[in-house]
């Protein structure tokens, strides 16, 4: 797949001028590199979603159920009644075009149907035809059209070219949120069994094993044990951790992606080190969970109901383990779900306590009801109260910039906490241009379940605005590390950087914390967690590598 992806010089040739032909006359062209594979029927079946079957987006025949038009129409109607957002957003767009060039996919592809307004019009055109008088009378001239197989394919293609990042909604004078429209559109597609596998299979995995990657409990523990080994090699400290421990103070839930793949694994090590530090110094008892081993929620990219079904584990596990409150790791859409949906869907969590940091005594008033605290809130509070011993110079080999992940930015508003942390664990921090960060931040191009391998061209195009801003600070300040608080970013941005700005690596904020954190009983560290030399420590003797694998396997077998 990767070989077929155009080169950066080719991909940057973007024409943002729409064609002469009316958009309704331009048939959808489902192009390799731009779409994700269809969902595996076994995954769809496992979670009991309708119309599981083998199908291929490139085929003429999508094997739709007989009454598919009726299903869409009824589903549309139902959602107009259940979601005011959907109904209002269908009605009030004036097509001013302010959103047009705000979408990373439009910027990166020039495809006019990636302008948020036109993405919404794909649905709105059917809405006008099916649910408004004006649309019925005037038809195409007034942007109305009946639902056909071609329209359905167009929906599918472009609703899976939206990462629900909400950037357009910041600029819309009525706050029309394309994420909301995409969410509804994908729900409708799911009624016909038209999901992508990169979403459907993680959903099924998460339902069964507790995490998207399908890591079974014993393997999950193995992975943490590997990290313990790695940490010991760098710091000579053997960190202690708990899993599924009843009566712990806090349940910690983070995306499984960070347990599974680099560079997220270093962030996971960062958590382990932080919790170990807090246990040693202050007696804080944090437990991980295998049943709740996923912070992310690909159900959110499937349907509201699926989101709720997967999210239910968080409170259920907190209740079972009898913890006081829940701490959530660095993740993007996970936090959109926790912040804006969880309490409503699966609350009230009256069996938990209002979150208080046992170390600083800080009451997290902002999480009073849903009882879940973001780790950036937690750690920045620790740093503010001087509870962490930090050696900033250990991050001196890094020139860091920070990527605000879409969901924590525009679905939560967590901007200062991660910056506060970075500024207290690193000496070199540089912001990207103002129009590309905070509420204006650009998506990694791979969110909302689109970080598959087969749609690499789409991902590289969609990530262009982000990469371009990173390139700017790389050239201007020599930035070599892109920090973020999202596991999908950590999975997606490395390939994006490799493609557009190869000199920049990607890190989680807690990896930086762990680099700087002075652990009780540690040696003088020669390298960071990635075994890269720390500036000014070249002389320090390194811990030998090599034994790690055999040893940890042995331990895992025990």
């Amino acid at each position, binding site marked *: 797949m990767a070989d077929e992806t155009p080169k950066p010089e080719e991909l940057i040739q973007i024409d943002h001028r729409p064609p002469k032909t009316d958009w309704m006359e331009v048939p959808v062209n489902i192009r390799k590199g731009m779409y994700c594979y269809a969902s595996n029927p076994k995954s769809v079946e496992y979670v009991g979603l309708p119309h599981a079957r083998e199908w291929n987006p490139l085929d003429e025949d999508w094997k739709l159920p007989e009454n598919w038009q009726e299903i869409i129409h009824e589903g549309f109607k139902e959602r107009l009644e259940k979601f005011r957002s959907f109904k209002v957003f269908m009605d009030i767009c004036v097509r*001013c075009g302010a959103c047009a060039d705000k979408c990373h996919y439009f910027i990166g592809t020039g495809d006019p149907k990636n302008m948020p307004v036109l993405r919404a019009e794909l649905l709105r055109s059917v809405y006008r035809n099916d649910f408004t008088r004006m649309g019925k009378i005037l038809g195409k001239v007034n942007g109305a059209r009946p639902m056909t197989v071609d329209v359905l394919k167009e929906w599918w293609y472009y609703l899976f070219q939206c990462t629900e990042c909400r950037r357009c909604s910041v600029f819309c004078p009525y706050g029309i949120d394309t994420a909301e429209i995409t969410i509804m559109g994908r729900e409708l597609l799911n009624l016909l069994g038209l999901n992508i596998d990169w979403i459907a299979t993680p959903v099924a995995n998460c339902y069964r094993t507790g995490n998207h990657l399908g890591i079974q409990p014993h393997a999950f523990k193995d992975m943490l044990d590997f990290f313990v080994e790695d940490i010991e090699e760098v710091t000579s400290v053997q960190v202690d951790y708990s899993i599924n421990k009843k009566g712990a103070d806090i349940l910690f839930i983070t995306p499984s992606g960070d347990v599974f793949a680099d560079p997220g694994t270093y962030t996971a090590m960062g958590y382990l080190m932080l919790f170990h530090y807090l246990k040693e110094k202050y007696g804080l008892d944090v437990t991980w969970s295998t049943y709740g081993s996923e912070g992310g929620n690909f159900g959110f990219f499937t349907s509201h109901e699926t989101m709720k079904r997967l999210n239910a584990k968080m409170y259920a596990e907190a209740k079972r383990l009898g913890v006081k409150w829940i701490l959530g790791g660095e993740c993007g859409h996970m936090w959109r779900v926790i912040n804006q949906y969880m309490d*409503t869907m699966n609350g009230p969590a009256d069996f938990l306590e209002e979150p208080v940091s046992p170390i600083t005594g800080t009451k997290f008033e902002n999480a009073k009801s849903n009882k879940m605290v973001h780790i950036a809130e937690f750690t920045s509070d620790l740093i*503010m109260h001087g509870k962490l011993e930090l050696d900033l110079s250990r991050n001196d080999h890094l020139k860091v910039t920070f990527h605000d992940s879409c969901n924590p930015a525009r679905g939560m508003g967590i901007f200062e906490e991660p910056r506060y942390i970075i500024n207290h664990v690193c000496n070199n921090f540089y912001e990207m241009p103002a129009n590309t960060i905070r509420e204006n931040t650009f998506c990694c191009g791979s969110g909302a379940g689109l970080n598959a391998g087969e749609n690499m061209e789409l991902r590289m195009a969609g990530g262009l605005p982000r990469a371009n801003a990173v390139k700017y600070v790389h050239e201007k300040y020599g930035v070599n590390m892109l920090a973020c608080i999202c596991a999908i970013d950590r999975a997606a941005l490395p390939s994006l950087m490799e493609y557009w700005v190869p000199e920049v690596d990607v890190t989680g904020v807690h990896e930086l914390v762990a680099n700087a954190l002075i652990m009780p009983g540690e040696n003088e560290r020669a390298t960071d967690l990635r075994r890269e030399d720390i500036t000014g420590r070249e002389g320090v003797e390194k811990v030998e590598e090599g034994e790690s694998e055999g040893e940890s396997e042995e331990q895992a077998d025990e």
Partner: protein
Amino acid sequence: MNLRYTIPLIAVIVLFLIAFLGAQVPGLQYVFGVVIPYLALITFVLGFAYRVIGWSRSAVPFKIPTTAGQQKSLPWIKHSKFDCPANTWQVVVRMALEILTFRSLFRNTRMKLKEGARISYQLELFLWVGALAFHYAFLVVLIRHLRFFIEPVPFVVQLIENVDSFFRMEIIYPVFKFGLPGVFISGFVLLAAVSYLFLRRLFVHQVKYISIASDYFPLFLIFGIALSGIFMRYVTKVDVTAVKELTMGLVTFQPTIPAGVDAVFFVHIFFVSILLAYFPFSKLMHLGGVFLSPTRNMTTDTRVRRHINPWNYPVPVHTYDEYEDEFREKMVEAGLPVEKMPQPAPAEEPASDSEPEQEEQKE
């Protein structure tokens, strides 16, 4: 030819002809001056209410504000009150900024892909200025027109008229007498703003691509309204006393058609009637909808106060017990604590509920 604007243009011309010619027929003046305006107003009021009630009937299951600033979290972190409002008052301010100053539009940037693969985003405020000019000019024109419907004319209306006509210029020419009566800036600003919004749709490629008939139609109609109004005031010099007699008749439900009302007036009031009747069934309802937009009118305190979803229903979940049943052996083998220890081969009593052996996974 692009049907998306030619059809609305033809429609407005036809409407003009209907009113202009119709007004020449004495009996029809009553239809254009009384019957249609009443019907239009009723349609507007009922239609508007119908739409707003329609929206309010839809549930708001989740609190989904767009957070465009720092959340209210730790006390020492500065909270962005109006871009991430945590309480109702802050939402009111956010909404006021949005509705009165078009705050989101004020953020507008224009993306450019430059030489050397550099992308820039420059502040682009033409749309914001154009939109503000349009809406405020329209508002002033509306308020000024209250003169025709209230007797005596309220002070506020007079004040606004005075401000609006501060600019005086006189052109006295046989066919075009300008400057007397006082020139109201608002009418000309409205005309200019409508023209800008139209030209934008015509010449900005992306906007042209997305525009449909119902984007052009109100622009043409409002252009016609403004133009006919200006024409009456400065060119044909309509008999204002007669017009006021007519409009007061409408307000007091004693409709009359006084003699000497110009045909252009009937065009003007017919256009306005069409706009009113069209309003509730069109995108112009953004006037009402902007107040109901869930990404703007909700507080961001979703973790502080539980929002209730009126249709929340129980869903099937994969319980911990089912999970442990599937993985129990592996968990035990890995030293993970379990709720029930695996049962030896022969069937026994179900495992007691007493605390399972809780092994620490660390030796």
